[in-house]
């Protein structure tokens, strides 16, 4: 289906990271404004209007594209903030807007026909009917796929739709269908859809005890570590819980996604673009991951096997443990 070279889509939380990602070989960089209109609304992160315009110039000068994430759901009575963000993205000369909310998609489709629309993973569109609906209503050109589909399902989906697909290959792994998960707001009052954050740092505590460290989120125990054990960030769905007569990492082990070994499979499944998660990550991390994936994608595009990306990326993944996630059917 795709004879074209796969596009490597890389994260940038700051202008410096954007430049680093471009120089490391990113085909596209995605970023967001410094406010609640994007799903990585963290302090010290993201772009002003001028920084975005400058970033777009830099990327275009180097043959790369910029995709602007305006991918949270607009708040009641404040929809104008999201529309304004879309206007600013369009005026910056960016190549695409990534959105999930009907209100934002509709605004862009009606007012900024020249800019490409990508459907955010937050819209959780995973069937030909859903994707077809967004294509018919708003003219989306690409859909970012939920991280819960197998390779076989992605292949079947690509056969049934005529918009591009983008698949996550590295970084955080949401085990829940994104854009429809309220676990974080249940515990903390803040969530991806309402605030652009999940398991927010201000609600986290690391409590030292005689036998080790207990991590908590909003008072709920998420995991416990013995003395000397590396302590992980208490992301709610990666916690250890009791259910039935079992104590386990019920939802997902504290692992991160690495589908570096599946690039050829994703290409065969008809995927157009490969996405690296991590707009909250530093410049050094992004550079190294992008370089490794550039090499891996180029190897696959030349018809070779995937290079040993695990070795290239040793030490760069959260908790050092990795999984190919839902791309392997046994995951579910």
């Amino acid at each position, binding site marked *: 289906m795709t004879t074209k070279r796969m596009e490597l889509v890389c994260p940038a939380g700051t202008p410096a990271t954007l430049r680093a990602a471009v120089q490391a070989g990113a085909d596209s960089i995605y970023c967001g404004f410094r406010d609640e209109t994007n799903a990585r609304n963290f302090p010290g992160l993201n772009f002003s209007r001028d920084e975005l315009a400058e970033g777009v110039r830099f990327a275009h000068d180097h043959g790369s594209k910029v995709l602007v994430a305006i991918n949270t759901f607009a708040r009641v009575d404040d929809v104008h903030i999201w529309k304004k963000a879309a206007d600013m993205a369009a005026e910056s000369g960016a190549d695409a807007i990534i959105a999930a909310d*009907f209100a934002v998609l509709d605004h862009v489709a009606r007012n900024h026909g020249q800019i490409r629309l990508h459907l955010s993973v937050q819209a959780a569109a995973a069937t030909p009917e859903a994707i*077809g609906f967004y294509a018919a209503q708003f003219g989306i050109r690409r859909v970012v796929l939920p991280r819960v589909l197998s390779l076989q399902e992605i292949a079947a989906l690509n056969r049934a739709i005529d918009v591009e697909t983008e698949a996550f290959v590295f970084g955080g792994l949401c085990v829940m269908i994104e854009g429809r*998960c*309220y676990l974080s*707001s249940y515990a903390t009052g803040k969530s991806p859809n309402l605030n652009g954050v999940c398991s927010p740092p201000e609600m986290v505590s690391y409590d030292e005890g005689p036998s080790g460290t207990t991590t908590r989120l909003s008072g709920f125990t998420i995991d416990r570590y013995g003395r000397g054990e590396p302590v992980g960030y208490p992301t709610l769905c990666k916690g250890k819980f009791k*259910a039935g007569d079992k104590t386990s990492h019920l939802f997902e082990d504290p692992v991160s996604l690495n589908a570096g070994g599946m690039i050829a499979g994703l290409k065969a499944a008809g995927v157009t673009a490969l996405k690296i998660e991590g707009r909250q990550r530093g410049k050094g991390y992004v550079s190294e991951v992008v370089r490794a994936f550039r090499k891996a994608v180029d190897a696959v595009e030349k018809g070779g096997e995937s290079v040993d990306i695990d070795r290239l990326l040793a030490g760069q993944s959260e908790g050092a443990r990795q999984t190919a996630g839902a791309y392997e059917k046994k*995951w*579910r």
Partner: protein
Amino acid sequence: MSEIALTLGPVFFHWSPDRLLDFYRRIADEAPIGRVHVGEVVCGKRMPFSDPAWPAIIERLERGGKEVVLSTLAAPATVRERRSIVDLCGDERLVEINDVSGLPSRSGRPFVTGPFLSVYNEASAKFLIQLGARTICPPVEFSFAAIGAMSLKCPEALFEIFAFGRLPLALSGRCYHARIHGLHKDSCQFTCERDPDGLSVDTLDDQQFLAVNGVQTLSNQVQAFCPAPDALASKGVKRLRLSPQTCDMVEVARIYRRLADGREEPEDARFALSCLDLPGTLVDGYANARPGWHVTAPA
């Protein structure tokens, strides 16, 4: 006062056909509820079990004077699951859309949007209204005040708030019942059937926290939002959704009916609910713009 209507939401759990028949027979005969949702929402693998039971259940409910709404799957994946949505969307009855997959086949005819559809603002609500949305039940994390603000700007639709039951918090491609039992989703053995209210998930310090129901994660605690009728009226919220648990749902309906008619104070309604055989303690944080597990003052 009687303008506040009650809705019985779809059963989220894997109940046997016999249990479903018994449950809806009582609802049809005894519950002071005008609108009743039927159908499998959480897992398409369960449909071959419950599908044969629905025609008799629908007939019984309609004979009992209930308005029946056909609920559709929240996370369709297989061809069969997708076809089920298209088929249900062709029905003359009202349909509940829980995934955008249902919109193409229902646009232009009236529908309900369920709490699995991301409707967070008046512009999105208007977009859906123009396609045919008549009742909108926003995601559970949405506050009462925010639903009210949206409702006042969208008088064309009725707004419904998730008032009672374990809160539906997340869906996954992965089945947690299967995972707990060392199985995979594709050969799950339907172990979710053993937990008709969901399986409790506690923290390592034994705090009650969540519950799993196959691919779904719910709150361990039970939402019990008990607003005074004038608070509902002032926000333009016209419907309260009660989500089935194994407790006495007829009694739950009677309590909410008295509350909505102004015949019972919110505190008394909450007390009456707390006396039922519930799978968790009562919470109402979301409705008051707090973390969902919080217990707050009356609205």
